[in-house]
Each structure stands twice: as C-alpha cells, then as structure tokens.
C-alpha cells in the first residue's frame, strides 16, 4: 500500500477508536507525551498496561472462584485496574470497572461475574485493535504531518 494511503488508513483506524468509544481524551494526553526522545512512548505504556493489568485480572478471576466472595478484595483489585485503565484512556474498559465496583458495593456476585466477562471482552478487543494499530504504524513509518490529528 502506498505510504500516504497507509498513513490515511492509520489515521482512520485511530479515529475509529474514539468514534467507537474504545478510547477517550486521556489517550491523546498519552500521545502528547511522545516525542523524539521517546518515539515509542505510547506503545510502551500500553504494553506495560497490558502486562501489569493481566496480573490483576488473574487475581480477580481467582477471587471470583471463591465462595463466599470477598467483595472488599474484589473492589480493591478493580480499583487498581480502573486506575490504570483510566490512565491510558481505555474508555469502555473503565466503564465496566465502574459497573463492577457498583456490583461489589451491592454485594451482587452474579452482577460482578457478568460484568467481569464483559470487561475481559472489551479489554481483549482493545488490545487486539491497538496491537494492530501499532504494528501498522511501525510499518508505515513516521508521518509527514506537522501536527498529530486531534480528536474532535
């Protein structure tokens, strides 16, 4: 694919993340921290997020297998997970975290389990899309535009 077309494709891919509600303005903050001294900052932070949060997800999974459920512990785990998800702008994941915490506070185990399944789905979808985005961005190389396109 011609280089300009590749960049256009990547631009539209990125825009779709915001249009579909997968990412919010915080991702733009993350992008603004990327510069010549840290040219892969966004990808590195996102990679770190997925690595660190996979541990929390495992902890939550194990905690959800216990009987009775320790809602305090679950809430604490989800609290951590929400913080990290918020920091990279993972909008849908963050929304599921909020929902999960509400079910924890209500002591609703079924609600927690249902929401957790949805959360894992959103988490995986975002991971796949971002992996694809970063891979294509690397293949396309740096864009010639002076400014990074901003979300409307």
């Amino acid at each position, binding site marked *: 694919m011609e280089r300009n077309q590749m960049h256009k494709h990547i631009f539209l891919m990125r825009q779709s993340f915001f249009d579909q509600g997968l990412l919010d*303005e*915080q991702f733009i*903050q*993350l992008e*603004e*921290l990327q*510069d010549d*001294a*840290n*040219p*892969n*900052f966004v*990808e*590195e*932070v*996102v*990679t*770190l*997020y*997925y*690595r*660190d*949060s996979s541990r929390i997800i495992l902890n939550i999974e194990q905690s959800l297998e216990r009987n009775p459920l320790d809602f305090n512990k679950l809430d*604490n785990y989800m*609290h*951590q997970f*929400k*913080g*990290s998800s*918020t*920091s*990279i*702008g993972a909008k849908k994941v963050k929304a599921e*975290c*909020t929902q999960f*915490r509400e079910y924890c506070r209500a002591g609703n185990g079924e609600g927690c389990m249902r929401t957790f399944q949805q959360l894992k789905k959103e988490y995986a979808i975002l991971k796949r899309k*971002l*992996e694809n985005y*970063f891979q294509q961005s690397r293949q396309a190389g740096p864009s010639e535009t002076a400014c990074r396109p901003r979300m409307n």
Partner: protein
Amino acid sequence: MASDTDYDSDGMRGNGDGGLSEGNGRRRKHPFMTWRNNLRALVVDNARTCRIMESGLLDAYGVEVEAVGTGEAAVELIASGETFDLIVLEMFLPFMSGPETARTIREMGISCKILGIAPMYCEKDAQEFLAAGIDEFLEKPFTPELFIPFLMEIDNQK
C-alpha cells in the same frame, strides 16, 4: 506490542528505563509550559502506568519530577532532605495508605501542596483524605486541566 523491558517493580523508585521516564531527574527538552521558579513534584502511585503518566505529564509541563511507588518510599525520600513544591499522592497505596502517608508527611512539618488522587471520587474517601492533610482530592485521570492551576498558584507564591 513492544517487547518486554526490565522495568523497576512497583514500590521502587523508577529509574526511567528505556523510553518510560518516571521523572527522577530526567527533564523534557521543550516543556509545554515554563515557570518563574524551578518547580519540583513528588508522585506517589503504586500503579506503574499511572505513575508514568502522572510523572510524564508534570514533566511535559515543566516540572522536575521524582516518582515512587509506596508511601514508605515517599516518607523516606522526604526524610532524607528532598524538598518538593507539590506532592501527588494516590489514596489506595499498599501497606502505608495514602491518608497515612499524608498524615506522616504533615507530622514531619512539610507544608507543601498535596493533591490526593484516586480512580473514583467518593465523598467518604475525600473526607478521610482531606482530614489526613491533603489540600485537594482529585479523581483520576490526572490531567493538565486539573494540575496547572495548582502549579500556577505555587509558582506565584514562591
């Protein structure tokens, strides 16, 4: 995704491996804002991603940043003589909590601005944290819109 890099574990002072600077002495060449005074901030957050973002943003806006992952490390740093104009303190730290850390820092006679942060706003948490000595309770994400007014206030008062 990028290949794994050996980063510092949570609880240790980050040394800014690879491209992921947690402040700690590194300064951005062309910050988005400059100040009349040299401003120093301490970020205390056990979540690495959060810590990197918080440090990165402050650094981008012209603040010299140190970042640690525990309340104990923050207290140790301050006890060693390091001074800060601003402390950004996560509420839910492991072991020594955010409120406990704030209380200890205030008992050490430190009067700088402390911003307490948490992933979700809760009135009960805010009251507890404010009673422990923070100046303001903020819900994450920690964005320039939230922290720039405090930096301006600090810079004007120095």
